[in-house]
C-alpha cells in the first residue's frame, strides 16, 4: 500500500536533486532543467497532500487546482527563459555560467 509518506519522500528526493543540480551544474540549460524538476517535486507534494486530505469521502481539490496554475506558469517561464538563454547564446556563443560573470562589485 502506497501511503502519503511515500509520495512525500519521492517529492523530497526530487526537490533535493533539483537543488543540488542548480548549485553544482555549470550549464545554464541544465540548471534550468533542474529548476523545472524542483517545481515538479512541489507539484507532486501538492497532489499527494490533496489526494490524502479527504473530507466526506472526497479529496479536497483546491491544491490540485493550484497544480494546474503551476504547470501553466512554468510553461510561460520556460518560454521567456529559453528566449533569454537563446539571446545569451547569440551574443556569447556559450551557455555556460562562465559567460555571465561580468557583473561584480
Amino acid at each position, binding site marked *: 500500500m502506497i501511503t502519503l509518506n511515500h509520495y512525500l519522500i519521492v517529492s523530497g528526493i526530487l526537490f533535493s536533486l533539483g537543488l543540488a543540480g542548480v548549485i553544482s551544474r555549470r550549464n545554464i540549460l541544465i540548471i534550468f532543467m533542474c529548476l523545472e524538476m524542483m517545481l515538479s517535486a512541489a507539484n507532486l507534494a501538492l497532489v499527494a497532500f490533496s489526494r490524502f486530505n479527504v473530507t466526506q469521502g472526497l479529496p479536497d481539490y483546491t491544491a490540485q487546482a493550484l497544480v494546474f496554475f503551476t504547470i501553466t506558469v512554468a510553461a510561460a517561464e520556460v518560454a521567456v527563459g529559453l528566449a*533569454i*538563454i537563446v539571446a545569451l547564446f547569440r*551574443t556569447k556563443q556559450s551557455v555556460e555560467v562562465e559567460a555571465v560573470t561580468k*557583473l561584480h562589485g
Partner: protein
Amino acid sequence: MSVFTLEAFLAILGLLLLIVEAFAPQISRRTIAAVSLGGTALALVLFLTVASHAPDSLPSFCTPWMRLDSLALFYKGFFLVTTLVVLWLTSECASYLGKYTLEGRLNELYSLPLIVCAAMMWMAAAQDLVTVFVALELVTVSFYVLVAFARKSNLALEAGVKYLILGALSTGVLVFGIAWIYGATGTLSFDGIAKALTAADLNKSPVLLGAAFLLAGLGFKVAAAPFQSWVPDVYQGAPIPVTTFLSVGSKAAGFVVLTRTVDALTVEHSVVGPEVKGLLLILGALTVLLGSLPAMFQQSVKRLLGYSSISHAGYLLLALACVGSTRSGMNASGIVAFYLATYLPMTVLSFLVLALLRVQGSGEDIRDFRGLAKRNPFLAFIMTLSLASLAGLPLTAGFMGKLFVFVGLVDQAYWGALVCAAIGAAAGFYYYFRAIVSMYSPEASAQEPIKLAMPTRVIASALAAAIIILGLYPKPLQQILSQPPEVAAKAAH
C-alpha cells in the same frame, strides 16, 4: 463602478498595446508612451474617486479569494503611483535606452508595466495562496522580459539570465512551501490557515518547514537574505526605469504578500507564532548587515542603491516581526506600509537623477557625480535630499520610517535585532554621505551645465516635497494606516 474593473482595464490596455506594437509597427513610440501614461493616470484618478466613495464593491464571485480592506486599497494606490512614475521615467530615458534595443524599439517597456501593475493590484487584495501565486508569477515573468530588454548590452543580458535563474529557483521554493503549508493545514486561504494554526493538537514541524520555504521564496521578491545576491548585479545591468520598478514595485508587492502571510502565521495563539517571529528577526538582521556592510565599498551608484535596497528590505522584515507593537499607533503591517510609502519618493528621486545624468552621457559611478552641484544645483539638491532620506537623516521621510521600526523593536525588546539595525543605519550614513560629498567636490568630472525640461522639474519637485512633508508631518498617513482592517471594512458596508 468597482475598484476591481481598474485591474482589468490596465491588463487589457497593456495587451492591446502589445498587439498594436506587433501588427502596426508604424505607430510612433510617442503615441504608445502617451497612451500608456494616460491610461495609468486615468486609472489613478478613477481609483482615487472610487476608493473614497465606495471602496468595498467586489463582485460576489471574487469574494472567496479577494478582499478590499484598507491595506489593500493603500497598496493599490501605491502600485498605481509607482507605475506612473516608472512609465514617466521610461520616457525620460528613451533617448539612451533606444541604443541598446533591437531597432530602437521600446514599446514593451511601456506595455508590460501596465500588466505588472494590474497583477500587483490583484496581489494587494489576495486572500488566498493560489491568487497570490498566480499574481506573483505574472509579475516575475514580466520582469524577466523587462530586465533583459536592453539586449544589445551584454550587462543587461547577463542581469536577465541571473534574474531568471534565481527567480525560477525562488518559484520552486515558494510552491514547495505552499505545498507543505497546505499539507499541514488543509487549506490555501489565509483565514483558513490562521484558524487551523490555533488548534493546539496541530503537528508543528510540517508547518514550520512550509513557513520557512514560503518566507525564503517571498524573500527573493523583496531582496532579502538568503536570496539577496542577485540584487546588485541585476540592478546594475537592468535599464534604469526597470531597476526603479524592481526596487519599489516588486519589493512592495512582495511585502503585501509577506504581510498577509505573516499575519496568518502569527495570529493569536498560533502554534508557530514565536518561531516565525524569530525567523523573521534573524533574516531581517542578516539582510540589514549583508546590505549595509558591502555597500560601503561600492564605486557604482547603481550597485550602491542595490545594496541599499537590500538593507531597506531588512528593516522592513524587522518591522514585520514586531507583531503586536502598537506604540506608534500602527501595527506591524501599518509600519511596513508607512516605510514603503517613504521609500517610494526617495528611491524614485535618486534613480531619476541617475537617469538624467545617464541621458547626458555620464557614467553611473560615484566619481561621475563629482561637481554635480556646479553643473546643476537643483539636481544636486534633490539627490542630496533623497540620499539623506535613504540614510535616515532627521526631518526627512526616511527618518520617520526608520524611527517607527526602531520604536517597534524597542517595544518588543528585540535587542539583538536592534543592535544589527543600528549598525546598518550607521554604515548607511557613511556610504550615502560619501556620494553626497562627491557631488559638492570642487573638481568636476564634466563642465557643461545640465538643462532640465519643465515637466521633469515639476515632478522632481513634487517627489522632493513628498519626502520633506512625510518627514515633518507624518500624522495624516499614520492615521490612514492605523485604522484596523475590520473597522475599514465595516465603514464600507
